[in-house]
């Protein structure tokens, strides 16, 4: 087990190194931060530009810059923003809560919708209700998430004025973005819960449980859902990177003060340290979720505990 975790952690570090190297190199090709900062403030002189490069450290060779960043990052120091002069870690800390709230809220909505509906559909296979649930899930899969966001703003905020359309003015602001994200996630999850539960319910031990007179409710919850959980958990882990993409776009739709917005702004200002910092934090999040998912297999199903 310890060897397994060590190997996985090593792999994760290699991925992280590759991702940061790509991002650090890529963002330096997009343009000069000194020029970007002077935008709209008149033409800077060559000396101004040079002084800024010295201050930013961007006059050094790329590898030196990257190694500086990487060694500092290992100590938890992500550098300072070119634009605001604030520590990148505190900029991220300010925004991370909003992103996390959105991601977790969306996931809760998704689970709350997908499990009951998927179970119901599996228990009434090929009935009208099953067909309708599957059509609904197909519709959800075909929605661009940002358009669903716009439509919900149009209906719930503009037409009926139930919730604020965008921005963050308190917990009620969470409703629209979480609902949007949740519905999109739920449409895939419903299918998966249904398919996975149907698969489990075809197993001999389910027949045995029914044959010995166990109430159907207990059969479904104790034997069915518990075993159907594994593919669902795997999927949630695999989709976490994708979930992130959804979050970045929805933050934009709802003017949500999260990490996605921070990254978009930082890219347009060529604020290298902020871009690198956000990428490190998001990539770490994805890697951590996948690791937890892998380790949770053993808990969910003792048969596949890793040695």
């Amino acid at each position, binding site marked *: 087990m310890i060897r397994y975790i060590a190997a996985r952690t090593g792999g994760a570090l290699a991925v992280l190194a590759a991702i940061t190297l790509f991002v650090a190199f890529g963002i330096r090709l997009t343009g000069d931060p000194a020029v970007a900062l002077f935008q709209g403030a008149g033409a800077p002189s060559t000396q101004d530009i040079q002084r800024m490069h010295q201050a930013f450290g961007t006059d050094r060779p790329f590898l030196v810059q990257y190694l500086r960043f990487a060694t500092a990052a290992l100590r938890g120091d992500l550098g300072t923003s070119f634009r605001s002069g604030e520590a990148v870690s505190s900029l991220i800390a300010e925004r991370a809560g909003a992103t996390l709230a959105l991601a977790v809220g969306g996931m809760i909505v998704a689970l709350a919708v997908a499990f009951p509906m998927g179970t119901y559909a599996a228990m009434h296979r090929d009935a009208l209700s099953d067909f309708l649930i599957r059509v609904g899930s197909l519709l959800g*899969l*075909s*929605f*661009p998430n940002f358009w669903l966001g716009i439509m919900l703003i149009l209906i719930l905020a503009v037409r009926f004025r139930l919730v604020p359309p965008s921005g963050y003015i308190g917990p009620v602001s969470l409703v629209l973005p979480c609902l949007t994200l949740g519905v999109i996630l739920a449409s895939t999850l419903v299918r998966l819960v249904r398919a996975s539960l149907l698969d489990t319910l075809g197993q001999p031990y389910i027949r045995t449980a029914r044959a010995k007179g166990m109430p159907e409710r207990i059969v479904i919850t104790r034997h069915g859902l518990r075993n159907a959980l594994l593919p669902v958990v795997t*999927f949630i882990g695999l989709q976490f*990177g994708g979930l992130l993409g959804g979050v970045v*776009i929805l933050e*934009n739709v709802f003017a949500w003060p999260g990490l996605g917005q921070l990254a978009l702004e930082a890219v347009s200002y060529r604020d290298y340290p902020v871009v690198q910092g956000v990428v490190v934090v998001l990539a770490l999040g994805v890697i951590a979720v996948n690791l937890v998912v892998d380790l949770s297999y053993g808990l969910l199903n003792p048969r596949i505990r890793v040695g």
Partner: protein
Amino acid sequence: MDSAPAVATAPASVRRAAPVGLRLTLLVGLTLVGLSLMAAAAAPVLAPYDPQAADLHARLTPPAWLAPGSRYLLGTDAIGRDILTRIIYGARISLTVGLVSVALSSFAGTALGLTAGYYGGWWDEAMMRFADLQLSFPFILFALIMIAVLGPGLSRIILVLVVTQWAAYARLVRSETLSVKETEYIQAARALGIRDGRVIWRHVLPNALGAVMVLATLSIANNILLEAALTFLGLGVDPAVPSWGGMLADSRNYIQTAWWDSTFPGLAIMLTVMGFNLVGDWLRDKLSPDLR
């Protein structure tokens, strides 16, 4: 918003005869795909107006059934361009991105997966590590940096999609290749001295094609969504070119006053994507039930 559609999901030992809805859903899917292809191919003939023609006296005109006497069926946008016309022209961008990106990434991924699986060794090892890396990179971050470096535009979007998606095909084809490589008929073909290229082409590839087609069809749907999202964020095609994502981005400032401006382009995306999803689902049931 994921970079590859969820193909590998639950195992399926439970399969029954097609429910009543299946034929119907295929028909609906093909109709939707056909309509969008037709719109893209015959846009200049079908569209009632020029997509760039701005009628400044008719800005934000509601759809015709709400504005008696209006010449614009689905209304106009903020500078008086006909929304129906721009939706018809917008099909060109969505379908070009969807079809070209999938054609290129499935071709590249299949070729790499076939050779990696068939020959094994260092090539296989290198390709699979590379694929792992690609798959663990969150798509949106990758796209953001790539577009920032290369600049926005139709060809750049396609490039980003191909670079991020070849790995899914390579993985899929490699595993199919591994599963047939040791079968007797392939061993027999090799023993007869048939060249590797011919064995791969005649005997290995056909086994993998079904799965590739399913993934490809579902990826068209997914890539249309990704293109619309990137364009919506301003990272996609040129805002001057009529595209569904771009129309939605423009419509955001008028959401309080002109619901039609943000409703119809999204509806166009949804129907097209749903068409490809329906066809893909049908193909999956038909060709490779194990991907269910």
